């Protein structure tokens, strides 16, 4: 594994702005305790709009996991959680976060994250989140709200699925009011939802620009540019940023300017990046492969119907196909994406930390090949914990895959 940082010289003009957004957010997170602003820790696909409506500062331990991994701290943190009795087989986002808490260490000024006053998690992306957040609630002894989703798998959403989630969002507002004293304001809520929807719309449009051949944006750029939609959904800054990013990328698309030179094979990526080795994308690119489509990034973009604020927000969070699709529906979705994005092959990252997303990959791969003849490759690793990562094995799998792609011409 190479230690050099990917993307040393930023290709995109907006990269500087993104850097500033991130720096501002983390600077604020370092001061938020001193300002006595309430802090909530959120799981991914948890409704961050609630925080911005209620003037609560949101922190994402999962984002943090990606950073700890990138800065080579995750192995130490995972081991610290294991020392407390958490199995090494558990999700390394969770182990990394729990370990950093036990050690009170982190990538920023050596410190951990600002401690939570509230904990908010969803459980429909995976059940581990609810269990992890329960543990956080016991550790910090602060109130926890789990937003539960009774999602169908392989069937359409019904009104009661939306209503159940929406009902909890209403309850969650009350929960935040009760524990912070901050009052809910419908106008503020609608304003936040407006920004969230606008940012989502732009983010999805930027993703769709990858349909252009050659792709105007690289996978590392897409994954890096997820930060505002995950963390700042509901803030004006996110909308402004994505407007600029959209302009820049659509201009590149118009000029047919490739993000990665030598785009020979267009690839669909399932699902997580390896956060301590984003350079794997560089390796793929050296072979002429460019990841042009994924469902990971788009999971975080979802539209909101502002005329029905709570139901609309619920739809943003439970309406994502990734979270309720069975193997067959996922196969159909990927086949559709393969067509739209002109994809030559599919790479599946079988992530030991995520049974939820990894289970079924063999069948999806097989289904795509049987139906439309597009080949896939599966390699196994962990997205945050590098301790058992085998660069050689992963590259061997990819090498054989590129041989197949080459033989197909």
């Amino acid at each position, binding site marked *: 594994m190479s230690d050099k940082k990917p993307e040393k010289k930023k290709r995109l003009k907006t990269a500087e702005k993104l850097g500033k957004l991130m720096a501002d957010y983390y600077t604020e997170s370092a001061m938020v305790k001193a300002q006595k602003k309430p802090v909530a820790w959120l799981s991914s696909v948890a409704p961050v709009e609630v925080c911005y409506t209620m003037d609560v500062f949101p922190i994402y331990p999962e984002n943090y996991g990606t950073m700890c991994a990138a800065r080579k701290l995750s192995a130490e943190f995972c081991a610290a959680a294991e020392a*407390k*009795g*958490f*199995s090494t*087989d*558990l*999700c390394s986002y*969770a182990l990394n976060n729990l370990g950093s808490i036990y050690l009170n260490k982190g990538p920023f000024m050596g410190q951990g994250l600002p401690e939570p006053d509230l904990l908010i998690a969803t*459980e429909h992306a*995976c*059940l*581990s989140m*609810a*269990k*992890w957040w*329960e*543990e956080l609630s*016991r550790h910090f002894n602060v109130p926890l709200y*789990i937003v*539960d*989703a*009774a*999602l*169908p*798998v*392989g*069937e359409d959403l*019904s009104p*009661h*699925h939306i*209503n*159940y989630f929406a*009902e*909890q969002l209403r*309850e969650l507002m009350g929960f935040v009011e009760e524990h912070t004293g901050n009052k809910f304001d419908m106008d503020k809520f609608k304003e936040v939802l407006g920004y969230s929807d606008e940012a989502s719309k732009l983010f999805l449009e930027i993703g769709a620009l990858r349909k252009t051949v050659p792709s105007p944006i690289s996978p590392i750029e897409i994954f890096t540019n997820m930060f505002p939609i995950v963390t700042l959904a509901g803030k004006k800054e996110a909308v402004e940023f994505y407007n600029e990013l959209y302009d820049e990328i659509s201009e590149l698309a118009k000029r047919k300017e490739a993000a990665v030179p030598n785009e020979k094979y267009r690839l669909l990526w399932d699902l997580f990046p390896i956060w301590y080795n984003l350079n794997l994308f560089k390796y793929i690119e050296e072979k002429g492969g460019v990841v042009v489509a994924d469902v990971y990034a788009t999971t975080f973009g979802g539209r909101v119907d502002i005329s029905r604020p709570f139901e609309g927000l619920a739809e943003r969070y439970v309406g994502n196909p990734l979270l309720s699709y*069975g*193997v*067959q*529906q*996922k196969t159909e979705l990927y086949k559709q994406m393969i067509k739209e994005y002109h994809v030559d092959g599919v790479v599946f990252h*079988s992530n*030991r930390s995520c*049974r*939820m997303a*990894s*289970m*079924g*990959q*063999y*069948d999806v791969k097989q*289904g795509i090949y049987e139906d439309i003849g597009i080949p896939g490759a599966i390699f*196994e690793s962990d997205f945050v914990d590098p301790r058992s990562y085998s660069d050689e094995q992963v590259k061997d799998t990819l090498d054989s895959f590129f041989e197949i792609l080459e033989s197909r011409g």
Partner: protein
Amino acid sequence: MIADFQERYAKRHELAKRWKKEGKRIFGYFCGYAPEELIDAAGIIPVRILGSLDKVTLADSHLQSFICAFGRSCLDQGLKGTYNYLDGMVTSKTCDIMRNMPGIWSRNIEIPFVGYIGAPAKRTKAARECLIEEFKVLRSKLEEFIGKSIDDDSINQSIETYNESRKLLKELYEIRGKDNSPLSGSDFYHVVRAGFVTPKKEYNKMLSSLKSELISSKSSKDGKVRFLVSGSTFEDVNILKMIEEVGGSIVADDLCIGSRYFWDLVEPASDPIRSLADRYQMRIACPCKHPSEERMERILEEVKKHRVEGVISIVQKYCDTHLFEYPYMKDVLQKNDIPFLYLETEDRLGEEGQFKTRVQAFIEMLR
């Protein structure tokens, strides 16, 4: 008598094929959150899909090595055609493995009906209303499948039969927990498991006979260390037998194939769907559900009530929800001065001696 229960389970596929020949419909379900009463009321025999101790061969090309042995073995059995007699399956949302299973199963194994209940994880009123809707959807899908309506009376009758089973199992559970009880923990495991694959009316007769037999028989448990066993599913009953052979006695449990399955009764009310939703939502929680405190409280109560001397947790490797709760459970038990032993399995007792040595040492410590 226990041999009858054992045989029921051992010959389950043979029996199912016989029912099938008699023109009956059979549905499979994966876990104790599937509302069997609704399937039963549709005139379909529900059987629980469980793994086996056979070597997994076919599932390896569908599931990664980090998927639990239970999931792998179930799918493997399905791929080998063991469950070809099923007319359908009903799965309820519990863990991430169960969530993904119906899709993989139905892609590779022909099955005419697949019902999935997106069961909420919480114990709130809103969650209950949602579960009611999910059960209503299942009911109408079942009606469509059998081509006739399922009336409230049939559901109420099924509820009654199932409640009878649960009452009898609870009585047997209490008999097992008595001093010098004639019913061992491993035998009780056979008894519970037979219920997954026997039509409930017939099963109730078997349970009643067993109860009368036990009431008049004598102890075999004298002088042993009293354990509560907690954990996920496991196929190999030898894990429990081994605990008993080295001087332990299982007097209470918090097992998926055990009290968590049968403990709670359905309260009959005017709307049977509502009654069922109440029961399935508020039953003793699997660690898949939220919150977790009530399960721990019940374990503590059982420990007190049955004068338990130690808790043994048997957890399936890669079972996220049980694994996440292990440090919590350890902590709760420690705070209450209850000795605790944790065993991680892959569905079976495994290498001879390894678990045995640990259980022996645990028993030595407690004596």
